[in-house]
């Protein structure tokens, strides 16, 4: 058996090499090790192959081969995802898109860019920045994460509050479908008739195929930007300030909250200018026309003061502003200063529940004997409790998972959701029943089957795998009631 498996592997390797070239296939187990996790280190799985296509045709040929051989495959960008979304399928193929990282075309007049999936998010803004444009979605990992990965997760970022998430900025996609067919979804203009297939694809976490070309909107850089830092002695005051800002009808580009533990980590990292003794800080950014900006900033400052801020100041210059953002955006990594590992939760709650939920989150984590750092998109009610732990201590991972599950349940209970922007991946798959009924999940499963009927494309993600809700893969496929009645057919 083992010999047969080895023989099959060797012949598959040769075929992959004939598609993408010998220098674009990895099979050495030591090399594959570097791909066993993404940004979530708690989960690991080893692929048999990593391939580096440089064209849609390469991807298509690899996918067709995988289908012929019944081998699962997973697309991967920079591997900065936080939910195990691009965790390899054991024994499968990782399709790394890092050698497809070009900006193919920029049409400034129509404000669009056509890019490849492996392009680093920030590099797109650099590429169009000289002409005064930028790409709005700015996940905190934007200096490393790829546009393709953003598509998979429908990524957000601090400026989501005003500008929306990835799907609001994607017009069209060239996609290699899970059976290898190359298709275009959407196009180069904003409106397209028929079903919004781009909207369906964005956020499908790599289970609906592999995007190989992406048409995105680029925006003109705002005329003016103002960044306000508000410092609080109590977390509740900061939470109240968030509500006060929104309640006064102000629409900042971003409202971010950072708690004390996180402030200390980022200050250790980069001396960004957050006061170490603050219980929490809010980073509020306004952008838009110069006219009226000053008055708006004044109202934000007032809202923070009214909520009990002990200090409110505006970044003096671009350098100070960049430093504050650097701290905010490096926060997750900065936990490495105070803990050997962390697991970030990605819950969404109604903004008005912030004070209550934050207190409960801190209680839950403390009850599990762990520490938590909070740094998140407060304006959106998108929480990121980061549970700090040491994987070398026996039993800690289990407690992290238990605390994480309790937090997710809490978010669901207050009427929120279990993911704002990091995707469900593998990490949160079992939490799906917290917010979706079996019928909801069955419907989603049918949508997945429409795209990915073989189940080979990024298997095991999104849908719960626990006993109660086994994934409906090809083997476990059961016809839906409407199918049995002849009202729908599987294709």
């Amino acid at each position, binding site marked *: 058996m083992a010999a047969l498996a080895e023989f099959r592997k060797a012949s598959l390797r040769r075929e992959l090499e004939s598609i993408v070239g010998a220098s674009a296939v*990895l099979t*050495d*187990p*030591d*090399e594959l*090790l*570097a791909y066993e996790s*993404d940004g*979530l*280190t*708690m*989960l*690991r*799985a080893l692929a048999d192959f990593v391939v*580096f296509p440089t064209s849609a045709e390469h991807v298509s040929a690899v996918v067709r081969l995988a289908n012929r051989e019944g081998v*699962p495959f997973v697309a991967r960008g*920079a*591997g*900065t995802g936080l939910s*195990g979304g691009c*965790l390899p*399928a*054991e*024994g499968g193929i990782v399709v*790394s898109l*890092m*050698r497809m*990282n070009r900006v193919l075309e920029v049409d400034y007049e129509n404000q669009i860019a056509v890019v490849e999936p*492996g392009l*680093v998010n920030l*590099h797109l803004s650099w590429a169009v920045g000289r002409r005064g444009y930028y790409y709005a979605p700015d996940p905190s*990992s934007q*200096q*490393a*994460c790829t546009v393709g990965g953003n598509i998979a997760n429908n990524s957000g970022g601090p400026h989501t509050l005003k500008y929306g998430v990835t799907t609001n900025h994607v017009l069209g996609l060239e996609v290699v479908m899970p059976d290898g067919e190359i298709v275009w979804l959407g196009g180069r203009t904003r409106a397209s008739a028929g079903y919004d297939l781009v909207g369906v694809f964005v956020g499908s976490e790599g289970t609906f195929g592999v995007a190989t070309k992406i048409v995105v909107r680029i925006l003109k850089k705002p005329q003016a930007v103002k960044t306000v830092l508000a410092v609080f002695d109590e977390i509740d005051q900061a939470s109240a300030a968030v509500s006060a800002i929104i309640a006064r009808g102000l629409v900042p580009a971003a409202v971010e909250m950072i708690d004390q533990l996180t402030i200390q*980590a*980022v200050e*250790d*990292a*980069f001396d960004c200018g957050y006061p170490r003794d603050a219980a929490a800080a809010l980073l509020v950014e306004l952008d838009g026309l110069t006219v009226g900006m000053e008055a708006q900033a004044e109202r934000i400052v007032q809202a923070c003061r009214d909520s009990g801020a002990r200090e409110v100041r505006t970044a003096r210059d671009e350098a100070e502003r960049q430093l504050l953002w650097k701290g905010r955006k*490096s*926060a*997750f*990594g*900065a*936990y*490495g*200063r105070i*803990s*050997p*590992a*962390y697991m970030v939760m990605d819950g969404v709650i109604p903004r008005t529940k912030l004070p209550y939920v934050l207190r409960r989150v801190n209680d839950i984590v403390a009850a599990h004997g762990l520490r938590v750092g909070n740094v998140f998109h407060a304006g959106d009610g998108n929480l990121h409790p980061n549970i700090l732990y040491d*994987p*070398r201590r026996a039993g800690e*991972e289990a407690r992290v998972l238990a605390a994480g599950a309790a937090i997710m349940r809490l978010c669901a209970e207050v009427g929120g959701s279990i993911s704002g922007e990091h995707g469900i991946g593998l990490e949160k798959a079992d939490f799906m029943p917290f917010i979706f009924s079996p019928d909801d999940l069955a419907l989603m499963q049918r949508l997945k089957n429409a795209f990915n009927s073989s*189940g080979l494309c990024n*298997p*095991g993600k999104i849908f719960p795998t626990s006993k109660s809700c086994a994934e409906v*893969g090809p*083997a476990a496929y059961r016809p839906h009631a409407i199918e049995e009645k002849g009202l729908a057919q599987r294709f």
Partner: protein
Amino acid sequence: MAHTVQAQPPVAAGRLALHGLSVEGVNQCVHCGLCLASCPTFAELGTEMDSPRGRIFLIKALAEGRIALGASTAGHLELCLDCRACETVCPAGVPYGRLIEAAKAEIERQRPGGVLRRAFRWLNFGLLLTSPWRLRLAATVLRAYQTSGLGWLVRRGGLARLLPGTLAAGEALLPPLPPARERAALPPRIPAEGARRARVAMLTGCIQSVVFGAHNRATARVLARNGCDVVVPEAQGCCGALNAHGGDHARALALARHTIEVFEAAAADAVVVNTSGCGAHMKGYGHLLADDPAWAERARRFAASVVDVAEFLAQEPLRGPLGPVPMTVTYHDPCHVVHGQKIRSEPRRLLAQIPGLSVVELVESDWCCGSAGIYNLTQPAMATRLLRRKIGHVVATGAEAVVTANPGCILQIRAGLAAHGATTRVLHIVELLDQAYGSASRGGASGEASGEMGRGSASRGGAST
């Protein structure tokens, strides 16, 4: 579909080390991946084993015994430039430079390589870098090779193609070695001009002193013009940076101890260094010798006194008068200045003080040029890719000169520009400052420098010592 996901296995407690050197720092990496796009080799290859996060992962797996040091792992670790760009962006503060040095030392222990490789290392690390006089002798021989026409024969006659990759790369990079008078030692003391600001000791460097003696002279002149009594300890040798970066840990320790001893005797306020790799390495002596009780404290104190020449000069406004240098230049950040020592604004502040000089920013100015110590000799293919990238950016600036602060970068970028057919000059920042002072002197604004250190007659004066 089988989809096994394993939980992290509990790792045996205890100090993680390679070749006896701690790699505990791997535990600071939380796998966030923010380093990926800052890594030149990852940008070129897109393979995660060639990214900082991937390499940290491999180092961790090695230290934990999860994998053995196979050829592929050694290859990925050796392909690391040790440019430390990842350290600049790492929020977790992973001491990457130390990790990769430990890994390289382990590679030397386990996989010393064939006869040629070992001979090359022995020649460089064992013979030349450990002895200033042997290095000077080698320079004399090389100078003879270059001036006799033999070098021309090797290059033009096609002999270079017969050399193994490393030697051929080395041949191409060999700078025209200056005549003996340029390579002569600096005088032991260069007195301050004007109000005395400090007494500084100068590292003249091993390679630097034979290839770029002129930069050392310029450094001493500029320091003196800025009120420094400059002392040049005669007994100094190599600081050991190349040995440490190349995995030759034992000799690196010996060279560090010798350097500390020699400079302590100079009793200076600061030790000024004009080569980036040396400066970054010497600032790390405290860590290097931390486990040696007899030396730990001395090393820490010494390391705190080390300062890069631009860092030192930028502490105060440059003393005038500076004459005009009407030229457009761009600045390339040497890795071990910008990433190794976090010196980014200082050289730019100095350049801004030179009248008539216009500075254009270089795209990816803090991106490695591929020189990286002896990397361009050991990894010529990747070094060439990075050099082409750098030259493309340099040419795009339209600058007349690239200003930088490290001999390795200067040689590499010069070779790249020559291959590209560009006439752009490559200057050490102290050369440019020295030129500005010279230009002021010619304008009659201040007295001539004199004696051995005098500009123009400097070389001849030096040759007689």
